[in-house]
Structure formats: C-alpha cells, structure tokens
C-alpha cells in the first residue's frame, strides 16, 4: 500500500487520534477514584498538620465540624459528620480566590472553616489561604486558638516553588514561626507580616521571610492577608461571641501562658 498518499495520511492520523483518545479516557476514568482519594487524604493530613498533629492522628476524631461562611460572616453550611464529603472540604479555594480578587459581593463568597478538637482538650479553628506564588499556586491552612487571635499552627504547600528557596514555606522550620503569633494588635486586624530581613524582636505579628525566596514570601504574605480579610467578619463575630460567656476567661489566661512558654 502507498503510505505516502494524502488520503492514507489523513485517515491514519484520524484513526490514531481516536484510538489514543479512547485509551486515555479509559485510563483516566478508571484511575480517577484512586487519584481523588490520594488528594483528599493529603488534604486531611495538611489540615491535621495545621493544628500541629502528625499523620498518625485520626482525622475523624480531630476535625469534628466543617462550616462554610460567606464574606459577611454568615454561616451557610454546617457539617458535623463525614467531613471529607462536606461542602466545606470540597470548596475550590482557587475559585474563591478569583472571586475575592474580582471583588465579588461578599454574600457570594464560600469560605471553608474547620473546627478541630485537639488532644489537650482545647479547640482550634482552621482557616484557608490560597494565592499565586512565583511559579505556581501556593496554599495552606492557618489555625487560630479560641481567642480568635493567637495562631495555633499553620501548614503551607506549593505546586512548584524553587527547591531550597521558595519551597521552604512547606517546611516545619518556616511554619513553626507562626505559632503563637497574633493577628490583631490592640483590637485592630493586622494579619501576619512575613518580613524580609527578619522579624522585629518580640513582635507579635511578624515572622522571618525566606532568604532568597522573596517573591514566594511576599506572595504568601499577600495570600494569607487576603483570605484573613475575607474571613474577618466571621472571625470578629466569633470574638464577640467568645467575649460574652464566662468560660472564656480561663481560655485567655491559658493561651497567654502558652505564648510565654514559647
């Protein structure tokens, strides 16, 4: 057969593309569940890491509640069981980031919040963050203690930041700096600043940036700030709630002690 004829070439390429597409579609469909399970497991581990727990902790035992709030602090959805299938767990933070950046109406935002029961009996609220790094997206979780001011822990990850430089945001050495920092100064929201050249001694809301990873550090700073600002109405309503009933006094004293020991 003449393999150089135009008609042969065209038919050959069409058949080839159809066969290849069919193979890929089949493989993609049959591996989808397994891949999604991996992604969801990783997310669970990161949520646990953001409150300082390792992979051996039982997700279902720690994360007891998942809520969705809008930009006005109104609770839209609450899930107390089967967290992995809850609305909050499956929110696409990248889509929400786009909405926040566009300046979409606050009631259209859907922000996930997870409530963790820690082994020491205290609670932590886990908030999300997402933004653009140097080479790709960066994201993470910031957890606050029940004074809704002190950071209990953070966990960040990235898609492709430079190893040894920007990629250091995923390391415990960087993340541990955030523990005990406060997002409010004298009742004013300040967020946490990632400062190039080093945080000021004794500062309650500054951490050291990564030397050589300036763009990633700045991007992370901006991402956390943007998301915290979106959460702000909700955080403030929690603070107001926490300020009214009695038991909170004990909590506040406890957290201050924690800060001092660190």
């Amino acid at each position, binding site marked *: 057969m003449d393999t150089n004829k135009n008609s*042969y070439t065209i038919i*050959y390429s069409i058949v080839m593309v159809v066969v290849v597409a069919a193979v*890929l579609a089949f493989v*993609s469909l049959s591996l989808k569940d397994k891949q999604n399970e991996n992604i969801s497991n990783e997310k669970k581990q990161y949520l646990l890491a953001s409150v300082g727990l390792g992979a051996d902790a039982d997700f279902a035992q720690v994360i007891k509640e998942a809520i969705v709030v809008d930009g006005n602090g109104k609770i839209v959805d609450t899930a107390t069981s089967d967290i992995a299938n809850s609305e909050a767990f499956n929110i696409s933070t990248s889509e929400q980031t786009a909405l926040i950046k566009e300046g979409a109406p606050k009631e259209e935002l859907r922000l996930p919040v997870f409530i963790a029961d820690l082994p020491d009996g205290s609670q932590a609220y886990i908030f999300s963050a997402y933004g653009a790094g140097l080479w790709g997206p960066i994201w993470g979780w910031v957890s606050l203690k029940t004074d809704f001011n002190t950071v209990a822990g953070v966990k960040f990850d990235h898609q492709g930041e430079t190893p*040894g430089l920007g990629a250091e945001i995923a390391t415990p050495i960087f993340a541990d700096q955030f523990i005990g920092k406060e997002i409010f100064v004298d009742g004013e929201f300040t967020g946490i600043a990632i400062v190039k050249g080093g945080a000021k001694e004794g500062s309650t809301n500054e951490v050291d940036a990564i030397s050589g990873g300036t763009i990633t550090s700045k991007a992370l700073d901006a991402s956390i700030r943007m998301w915290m600002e979106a959460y702000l109405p909700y955080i403030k309503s929690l603070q107001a709630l926490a300020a009214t009933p009695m038991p909170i006094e004990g909590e506040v004293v406890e957290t201050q002690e924690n800060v001092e020991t660190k």
Partner: protein
Amino acid sequence: MDKNIITNPILKNNPVTVLVLGICSALAVTVKLEPACVMAISVTAVTGFSSLIASLLRNTIPNRIRIIVQLIIVSLLVILVDQILKAYAYDVSKQLSVYVGLIITNCIIMGRIEAFALGNKPIPSFIDGIANGAGYGLILIAIAFIRELIGSGCLFGVQIIPESWYMANGGWYLNNGLFIMPPMALIIVGCFIWLQRSLQKEDSKK
C-alpha cells in the same frame, strides 16, 4: 541476538554521558534518590514501550507525519505513566511534578525511535529502548546517590551520616547545601563524562 544492543547504551554509548541527552531532567530530579529511581523506571518504561509500538507500526506510518506519530506514541505513554503515578505513588509524583510530563521532551526517546525502532524488528527495538532508558536511569541514580548523601546526609530519606556528627549536635559536620542546587548536578555529570572518556580511551588503546 547481538548483546551489544543491551550493553552499548548502558556503557559505551550511554545517552547521558556520551550522547549528552536528557540532561535537563538529570539536573532536576536528582536531589533525592527516591524520585530519581521513579524517574529512571518511568523513562525506561516509556523508551521501551514507545520503541516497541513505533517498531510494530513502522511499516504503516506515513513518512510525512512520522515525527507527529512518534510524538503521539511518546505522549500517550507519558500521560499513562503520569496518571499511574498520581494514583499509586502520589508523594513521588508530587516531587517529580512537571518532570514526569517533561519526559516527552527527553531527546533519548524520540532519538531511539527515529534512529533504531523505525528500522528494526519489535523485539530488538524494545530491548534497545529499555537499555537506553536503563543507561539514562543508571546515571540518574548515581547522581542522586551522591547528591542526597552529601547534600542531605540521607539515602532514600534514611539518615546515613550519624546525627552526633552534626554541628547542631556539637559535632563537626554540616550538609553541603551546594549539592542540593542544580549546578552541582551538572558538575557531577561532567565528572562522570570525564571518568568515562578517560576509561574508554584506555580501552581503545588496547
């Protein structure tokens, strides 16, 4: 069968040290042994099977779209590898990130299809592909061995250099951070090339 099909690509005609192909990924994924091994296996599988498929189809491929057909075969296999890694070796696939997809651009694969598989029977082509992938993988693993040992003091993530040697624990040792950076991979590849060239020169004198 000619055993040179197997030994040549691994030693005398090694794709990395002699033909200097596939350097890009050799720099990127050799910081640690685990991703380097997975990368080596992935590339070997892709070169082997793409050569096999190309060789099976060699008499039907229209000459004018030859390269495109090769590209489709290679990318099909690379996407398969990527999907399988994402499902069964998620952590490693995250470490390799874009470099799995970039196997497509590895010149070794297209080079072997064009130079060997299109003119030879399927079985020798398959072996040629596997041997070339193995030659590449061998160098990759050797580089990763040196870089992980000196750069992080571990092998496969297991600490090899005793903790008590480290300065942080009052010892005298510090990991050499240079070995984690890409330039060091290039220098190590250079040393391998030097080593191999000088050894082969002695061979040819005999």
